[in-house]
């Protein structure tokens, strides 16, 4: 079974600065997908970014980018120019051949003004 580990339960960053959230996973599969989801307080879970394991190029979405290290099974999320609206719980998730998402425990990110 796959496991996803987010070792930082909470993080904080000043507005306009950059922050990196960590995620590691364990799998024996070679073809899979990794995701970062954002869940603002009392609001809907939304997709931030997606990475296909067979692609060497790191995914980017505006201020959000990932550092995908397949050999190390590491998938960190970098948020540049942090904004107050980035305050949320961030979940790393793995999707393998069983088509079921496995989530990490989440990192609570607070952006301070």
């Amino acid at each position, binding site marked *: 079974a796959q496991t996803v580990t987010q070792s930082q339960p909470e993080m904080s960053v000043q507005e306009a600065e950059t922050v990196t959230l960590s995620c590691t996973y364990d799998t024996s599969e070679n073809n899979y*997908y990794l995701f970062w989801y954002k869940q603002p307080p009392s*609001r*809907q879970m939304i*997709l931030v970014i997606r990475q296909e394991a067979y692609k060497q190029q790191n995914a980017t979405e505006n201020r959000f980018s990932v550092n995908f290290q397949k050999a190390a099974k590491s998938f960190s999320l970098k948020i540049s120019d942090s904004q107050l609206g980035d305050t949320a*719980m961030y979940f790393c998730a793995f999707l393998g051949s069983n*088509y*079921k*998402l496995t989530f990490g425990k989440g990192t609570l990110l607070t952006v301070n003004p």
Partner: protein
Amino acid sequence: EADIYQTPRYLVIGTGKKITLECSQTMGHDKMYWYQQDPGMELHLIHYSYGVNSTEKGDLSSESTVSRIRTEHFPLTLESARPSHTSQYLCASSESGLSTDTQYFGPGTRLTVL
């Protein structure tokens, strides 16, 4: 933003009542999922469906049941609610195929059983 809806958003109910949590999506996705999430915690898959008349139990054991009679509708039912069922329930859907299997989530139903 994905077109996936859940009702009610909040529900407070007494022990022993039967409840149904509704989930609908307008994207024509064939796969649908139910997750249970305690506040500030990770999500646990409790049910999933890969199409009409197909339902499976997820990784976390749950006393709830689901049905999938129509592609767009995936309701979850608790026959007799208990305080241990207090949690947030999230519905999600996705298209088939590993290349497009991104799950989109509804807003959730926060259930409190007294």
